[in-house]
């Protein structure tokens, strides 16, 4: 066990503070609007804290460190692309400005105004399917970090994560977005301190010059494979060499141009479509606040990949110089094990609290978001009579509970077909490509209609689903699955709209833009 009593005291104070703050906000929840979008009272800095805390989970730290371990600093190029995408969207207001102005609570709700109730329901189904599958591995990866960083017995993983999810569940189900915003704020502070302290200690431990020399030596030893697939990069890294160029992400052995171009399209879609990000846009006071929130958060995404990536690269160099990676560790679990070696007593308590903060803010934000979509877009449209405000709240809270139960069981048995990042990108793509196509066409193309929307939803989901279930057996590249879904969704929208009757005027897209 790596934790000392002082570490435990820090962790318990943090957990107690979060619970108290989350439960305190329950008193301000008067209806679903307060529960789902915090009464649209969120201002820009709180939005930055909440968005940053939600989008930087323990799962993020694990997979970005894995990329750093296998691909060196070049593995963090995706963070740079995300930064550029988020800034671009924040600068132009592309999609997010008209979406916020439309006054909806979820993205599928806009599709009812623009297309039809059936499109809203179908889009809601895809949003939930992709979102829940994506979130399914959060607990397992978060638990692995805690086990390896703290020295807890591996058999405790399920129990620790169940207890943690239980805590998050209580304040999320009771206080909704209001609790999530306030706990996100606390978690943003604790997590920020933990990340900065860890990064400084890691550089100090491994030594900057030694880190660079270690990566260069491993790349030279690896010989620079022509094109390192994720498994090849992983196997080489386990053996203490690098099959991927550690600094040049455009090199054929690293990501290469094709993958990075796909990522750029993918991240534009994420910034405009990913419901957990968009829920902050919809909770913002107005479109201008949402745009400022995006611009000011953009650079945060570089560190989101690069700093855990730095820890992963440092772990790689350290293990390569100390007899190689132990047999019971993988490229995913190497980083937390390394941190347990680097961080002194007292500091590790702060860092574990920071990582718990990362996990909790992500879990709460995601559970609330998907529960809101299920209620708002799948259940509510099917009701003959609207529920009372109390009934709406109760149902949404039960949905949060249901998602928590799903997370526990799915997270325990699913085996990743590739590395964690590819899994997350592809499951997210189940709805990202198609819903992004619907949003862009719905807001900016008056000729788009319901038939095109349905075709785009169905065709856009094919590529990612094939990868998810057959990717391992048939060795399908993630960028092929991902890029094909964008192409198929666009094809479905254009062909479906042009081959059927034009939508009745006046177009709802005009009202959405006002």
């Amino acid at each position, binding site marked *: 066990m790596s934790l000392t009593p002082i570490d435990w005291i820090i962790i318990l104070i943090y957990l107690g503070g979060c619970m108290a703050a989350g439960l305190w906000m329950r008193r*301000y929840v*008067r*209806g*679903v*609007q*307060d529960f789902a979008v*915090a*009464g649209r*009272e*969120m*201002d*820009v*800095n*709180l939005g*930055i*804290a909440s968005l*940053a805390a939600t989008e930087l989970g323990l799962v993020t730290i694990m997979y970005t460190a894995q990329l750093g371990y296998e691909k060196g*600093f*070049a593995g*963090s190029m995706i963070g*740079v692309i995300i930064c550029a995408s988020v800034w671009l969207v924040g600068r132009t207001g592309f999609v997010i400005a008209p979406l916020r102005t439309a*006054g*909806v*609570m979820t993205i599928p*709700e806009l599709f009812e105004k623009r297309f039809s109730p059936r499109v809203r329901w179908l889009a809601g189904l895809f949003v939930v399917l992709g979102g829940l599958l994506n979130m399914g591995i959060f607990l397992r990866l978060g638990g692995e970090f805690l086990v390896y960083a703290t020295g807890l017995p591996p058999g405790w993983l399920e129990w620790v994560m169940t207890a943690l999810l239980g805590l998050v569940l209580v304040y999320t189900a009771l206080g909704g977005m*209001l609790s999530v*915003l*306030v706990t996100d*704020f606390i978690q*943003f*502070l604790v997590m*920020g*301190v933990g*990340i*900065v302290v860890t*990064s*400084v200690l890691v550089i100090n431990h491994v030594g900057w010059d030694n880190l*660079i020399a270690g990566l260069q030596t491993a790349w030279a030893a690896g010989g620079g494979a022509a094109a390192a697939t994720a498994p090849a990069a992983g196997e080489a890294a386990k053996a203490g060499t690098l099959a991927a160029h550690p*600094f*040049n992400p455009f090199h054929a052995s690293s990501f290469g141009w094709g993958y990075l171009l796909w990522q750029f399209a993918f991240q534009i879609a994420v910034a405009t479509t990913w419901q957990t990000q968009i829920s902050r846009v919809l909770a913002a006071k107005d479109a201008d606040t949402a745009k400022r929130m995006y611009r000011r958060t953009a*650079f*945060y995404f*570089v*560190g989101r990949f*690069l*700093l855990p990536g*730095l820890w992963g690269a440092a772990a790689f160099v350290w293990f390569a110089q100390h007899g190689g990676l132990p047999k019971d560790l993988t490229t995913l679990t190497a980083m937390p094990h390394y941190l347990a070696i680097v961080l002194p007593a007292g500091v590790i308590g702060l860092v574990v609290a920071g990582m718990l903060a990362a996990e909790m803010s992500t879990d709460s934000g995601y559970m609330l978001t998907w529960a809101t979509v299920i209620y*708002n877009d799948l259940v*509510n449209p099917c009701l003959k009579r*609207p*529920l*009372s*405000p*109390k*009934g*709406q709240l109760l149902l949404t809270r039960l949905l949060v509970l249901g998602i928590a139960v799903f997370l526990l069981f799915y997270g325990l048995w699913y085996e990743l077909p590739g590395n964690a990042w590819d899994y997350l990108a592809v499951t997210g793509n189940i709805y990202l490509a198609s819903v992004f196509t619907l949003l862009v066409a719905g807001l900016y193309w008056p000729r788009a209609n319901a038939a095109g929307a349905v075709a785009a939803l169905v065709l856009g989901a094919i590529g990612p689903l094939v990868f998810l279930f057959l990717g391992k057996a048939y060795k399908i590249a993630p960028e092929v699955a991902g890029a094909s879904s964008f192409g198929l969704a666009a094809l479905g929208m254009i062909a479906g709209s042009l081959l059927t009757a034009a939508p009745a005027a006046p177009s709802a897209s005009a009202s959405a833009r006002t």
Partner: protein
Amino acid sequence: MKDPFLLFWAVLIFASIAWYAFLVFYVGWKAGGEIKTMIAALSGAEPVKPDDPPRRAP
């Protein structure tokens, strides 16, 4: 540091550490004030009465 990519990553790593440290203090201070304002606004809002007509999503 002859490799331009190496220089690129070194600048980004140290800028990220500085940016995260700055954000913790700056956003922490500002967002704390915004939470107070949000709570004040929510406290002043008229609560939903049990006999109010049910409302659909806006």
